């Protein structure tokens, strides 16, 4: 280290805006643009080492860093929640390295980085949703060879994807794939939507830009606004966006994706919205679920 005695300001200036250097951002932006031009196609990119382990969202962080502008407002969610480890640390990372505003409100954010969920509130034009992707290749567990899967994508040989769904039905009587449910984008590429619950699949036809970053696997792919995204299925076993058959116990919402929380060792369980912002906004508006208490009383 050259400067041992640095002021906080000088320390800030040691970082380029949003951590990555401009050449790296340029390379990532180029991959993003290519991804947007070919919806669902996995664009290879030279993923960088990030100050976090693989599997913690290195791909998503790089994509976010490349699209962030100083005037952006960032929201980070992990399984729908703003207050879990992954979300908190990534939010802090960008607060520190980009000095941008952050929010927990879906509607106020211009860039939303997400792990495993799409927010309940409909996204609008001008917003960007960045997904963290562990394994971008939907055919991976059926076909181990990357050479072969690339060929299958380029020749549109997607019969194998249905073999997986067939296996599900033959073993479980229904398509048991509940997350990372394969989709076909704009009638061309079969894509892994990252491990979001299949409940979120229909939301992927949205007004916002969706970007997917897989750091370890070095792939970026994208869905432009208003792009057709169809979940694969069989004629006699159509796709179903399923969720727990329950209403949120805190806010009473019956249209949101729920987390099941085990309360004790006697089998008591509670269902709550996985989207914490959605739940809080509903409770703020006066909705109360079966086990909830009105917001005013809950504030100590």
């Amino acid at each position, binding site marked *: 280290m050259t400067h041992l005695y640095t002021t906080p300001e000088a320390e800030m200036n040691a970082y380029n805006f949003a951590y990555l250097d401009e050449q790296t951002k340029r390379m990532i932006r180029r991959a993003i643009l290519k991804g947007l031009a070919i919806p669902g196609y996995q664009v290879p990119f030279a993923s960088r080492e990030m100050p976090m382990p693989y599997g913690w969202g290195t791909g998503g962080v790089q994509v976010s860093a490349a699209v962030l502008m100083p005037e952006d407002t960032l929201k980070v969610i992990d399984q729908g929640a703003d207050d879990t480890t992954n979300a908190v640390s990534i939010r802090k990372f960008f607060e520190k390295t980009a000095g941008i505003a952050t929010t927990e409100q879906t509607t106020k954010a211009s860039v939303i980085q997400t792990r495993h969920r799409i927010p309940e509130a409909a996204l609008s034009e001008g917003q960007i949703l960045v997904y963290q992707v562990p394994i971008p290749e939907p055919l991976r567990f059926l076909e181990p060879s990357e050479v072969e899967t690339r060929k299958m994508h380029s*020749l549109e040989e997607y*019969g*194998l994807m*249905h*073999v997986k769904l067939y*296996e599900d*039905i*033959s*073993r479980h009587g229904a398509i048991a794939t509940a997350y990372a449910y394969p989709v076909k984008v704009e009638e061309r590429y079969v894509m892994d939507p990252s491990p979001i619950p299949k409940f979120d699949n229909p939301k992927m036809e949205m007004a916002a830009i969706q970007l997917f970053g897989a750091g370890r696997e070095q792939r970026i792919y994208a869905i432009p606004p208003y792009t057709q995204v169809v979940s694969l299925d*069989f004629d006699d076993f159509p796709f179903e966006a399923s969720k727990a058959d329950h209403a949120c116990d805190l806010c009473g919402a019956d249209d949101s994706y729920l987390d099941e929380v085990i309360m004790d060792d006697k089998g008591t369980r509670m269902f709550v919205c996985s989207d914490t912002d959605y739940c809080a906004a509903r409770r703020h508006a006066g909705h109360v679920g079966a086990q909830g208490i009105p917001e005013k009383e809950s504030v100590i």
Partner: protein
Amino acid sequence: MTPLLQVKDIAKTYGARIGCTAVSFDLYPGEVMGIVGESGSGKSTLLNCLAGHLEPDAGQVLFDTRSAGMQDTVTMSEPERRMLSRTDWAFVHQHARDGLRMNVSAGGNVGERLMAVGARHYGEIRSQAIDWLDRVEIHETRIDDRPTAFSGGMQQRLQIARNLVTGPRLVFMDEPTGGLDVSVQARLLDLLRGLVRKMGLSAIIVTHDLAVVRLLADRLMVMKDGHVVETGLTDQVLDDPQHAYTQLLVSSVLQV
């Protein structure tokens, strides 16, 4: 009658070594052609060249396609060739493991080709799979078992079902009975003979087992060191071999 497959001067070398060279023949619809020869004689190289797994260095492989008539499969585009290999062609590997997906159930294995050509109705795919398992004498109750739970003979029969489900017109077989014990071999041959005759399939069978070609093949091609040394009707070649190597081959068969 036009031939289904016309092979013209196929050659494949591995560096300076010859894989196979100057092989030409016609195969007519419904005909079964046997290729025999010792290990290293180039018969598998030839088969892989014909089936599009290897690119030959010279020559043409013309196939009578449904849509466009005679087409050279060596020069056709890869998507077309791959389409052909999962519709009109079938390839039965010597080791069933090479031709099956071992982590997918028997039904899924049979259904894969159907789904690859666009079948999207689970019930229909399943009933066709059951029908085909029945035809290769695998009981319907085994449909959801993985091939790892099957015996060698069953795996081989499953591989055949998986290949024939889309009603191909030409089947390539690479030592289909290799590694099976004799009673299982006999049943498999019986089954193959029945299927080939019933479906009017054309087939090219590579083997070193003369009994297999005696039972299945109409015509025979004998290879040695990459060259075809003798061709003719199966009975003719086996009962009245002309070439010294064929004579050796025929006389080497052990009599019980």
